[in-house]
């Protein structure tokens, strides 16, 4: 699905730092995400995970450093431009279009993928058919085919997340950024989400996941980066990270459970 890039690194954050007033949220963070892998970002609260995610999606500009996605430098790009490059974000609280039906929710990114970031197609109706059937397929993929004409606000929280995932997938991105995809989910919902994400990844999707639930992280990731106090203190396969004394220390210092 994703085009071959010149290197096998899809996302390259180089020496990214961010200061908020006197607080250094990120300190020379280097992060390389390879093609077709699931890369998790973990760390105690306040470690800078969300800040890093916001830097990548263009919501905040770093104090210094660079972010390169698929050989394109991304700093100074607007969120919609970053998205058009093929990077889609799944928010922590489901960001959907609540007053619209599911099918319309998914038609919008499908249109954005077909027509670009702006097109004055006021009189067009033809072509919506192909968009709609594509949206329907995408909804089927995440398991929401039965409620395509329902308004999105009536969905359960778990289904809202599925819908958001469908919105992101309908844009046919090269990479998905997921901010705590299982937060607030019941156990069986979490398991379903793991299966779903695995299925999507197996078809050739690169993912960056920020997650608290270690079961999810270990079940999905090929690579894990551990952030603590704005720097990456460890990186490696799940097994390598599990045994790393620095990681244990960082977590034990913060969380009791």
């Amino acid at each position, binding site marked *: 699905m994703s085009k071959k890039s010149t290197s096998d690194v899809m996302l390259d954050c180089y020496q990214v730092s961010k200061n908020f007033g006197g607080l250094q949220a990120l300190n020379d963070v280097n992060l390389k995400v390879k093609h077709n892998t699931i890369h998790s970002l973990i760390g105690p609260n306040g470690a800078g995970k969300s800040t890093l995610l916001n830097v990548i*999606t263009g919501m905040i500009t770093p104090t210094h450093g660079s972010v390169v996605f698929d050989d394109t430098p991304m700093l100074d790009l*607007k*969120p*919609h431009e970053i*998205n*058009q490059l093929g990077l*889609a*974000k799944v*928010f922590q609280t489901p*960001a*959907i*279009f*609540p*007053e*619209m039906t599911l099918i*319309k929710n998914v*038609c*919008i*990114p499908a*249109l*954005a*993928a077909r*027509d*670009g*970031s*702006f*097109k*004055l*197609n*006021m*009189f*067009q*109706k033809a*072509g*919506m058919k192909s*968009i709609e059937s594509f949206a329907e397929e995408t909804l089927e993929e995440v398991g929401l085919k039965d409620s395509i004409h329902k308004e999105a606000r009536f969905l359960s929280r778990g289904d809202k997340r599925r819908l958001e995932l469908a*919105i992101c997938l309908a*844009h046919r991105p090269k990479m998905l950024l997921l901010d705590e995809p299982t937060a607030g989910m019941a156990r069986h919902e979490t398991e379903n989400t793991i299966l779903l994400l695995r299925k999507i990844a197996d078809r050739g999707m690169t993912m960056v996941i920020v997650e608290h639930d270690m079961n999810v992280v270990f079940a999905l990731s090929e690579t894990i980066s551990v952030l603590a106090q704005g720097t990456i203190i460890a990186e490696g396969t799940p097994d390598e990270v599990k045994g790393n004394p620095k990681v244990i220390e960082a977590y034990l210092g913060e969380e009791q459970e």
Partner: protein
Amino acid sequence: MEYVVSILKKFPLTVFALVVLTMPFWFPWIGGYGGLATKIMIWALFALGFDILLGFTGYLSFGHAIFFGVSAYATGLMFKHFSDEIIPAMIVAVIVGTLASVIIGYLTLKKSGIYFSILTLAFGEMLHSSALSTFGSFTGGENGLTLPDMIPSMLGIEMRGEVMFYMTAAVLILGYYIARRISASPFGLILKAIKSNQERLEYTGIDVQKYKLGAFVISAIYASVAGSLMVVYEPYVGTEYLRWSTSGNLVLMSVMGGMGTLIGPIIGAAFMLYFENVLSVPLGEEWLLVLGLIFMAIVIFLPGGFTDGFKLIYKKLIGKKSDGEEN
């Protein structure tokens, strides 16, 4: 009843056109008169365009009188200095209104919510006061731009009475048709998504700023056509066309009729003007008070406006029908 609604649903444009075009026949029965019908059409067009901005994107402009007023002045000046032919006057007026909307939209749409509303209000008041002072020599200042004994014409046909009514009605029907097409288009879908969740839209690869400007300019074109028609109908331009109260009336019409429904603001405009000119007669001085009470009642009990009310009544009737034998 179900039959009537199914026809409404199937042929909304035809029904709309029929109601509008037959107005000279039925409007006098309820106390209306020819000139008022034309005025209602003009305001309906103004409110219809406003719905593309407020109803679809949720951006509440308090300065839409700018485009109505600027275009009215342009039309008046064309009549005064060029000719009484309406086609060149209206074309120039719409171009002037559109240009104004591109500039003002570009500057104000960077903000949202209350800040956008206040910025548009500020622009409106700026233009209103400069029409009174700085540009007084063009606008006629407080006296307005008077065009004594002027009868505008189109290709030699004088624009008054029924001719004016049918011309305005044709423009309104066309405007309604275009607005419905926009509503059903991908462009319209994205405008409605702005109201629903602007942040999600930005992170979905959509250049929201351009869509907002698009909606703003389209609604301003409607306002410009309406402003220009107003001067054709009544060859006079007053500074009140630029005043905030004109924008305010527009908001009232939209809210009373039902935002985002296209037909709602048209009904709102018709109701407001009918009330102001016909129902106000027996009420005397108190008519504004009564209008205020009606407005309050709608906001409290029917947030979706008249269109919501019709839906509720319809549901009640259908409900009765399904468990009883009423026709």
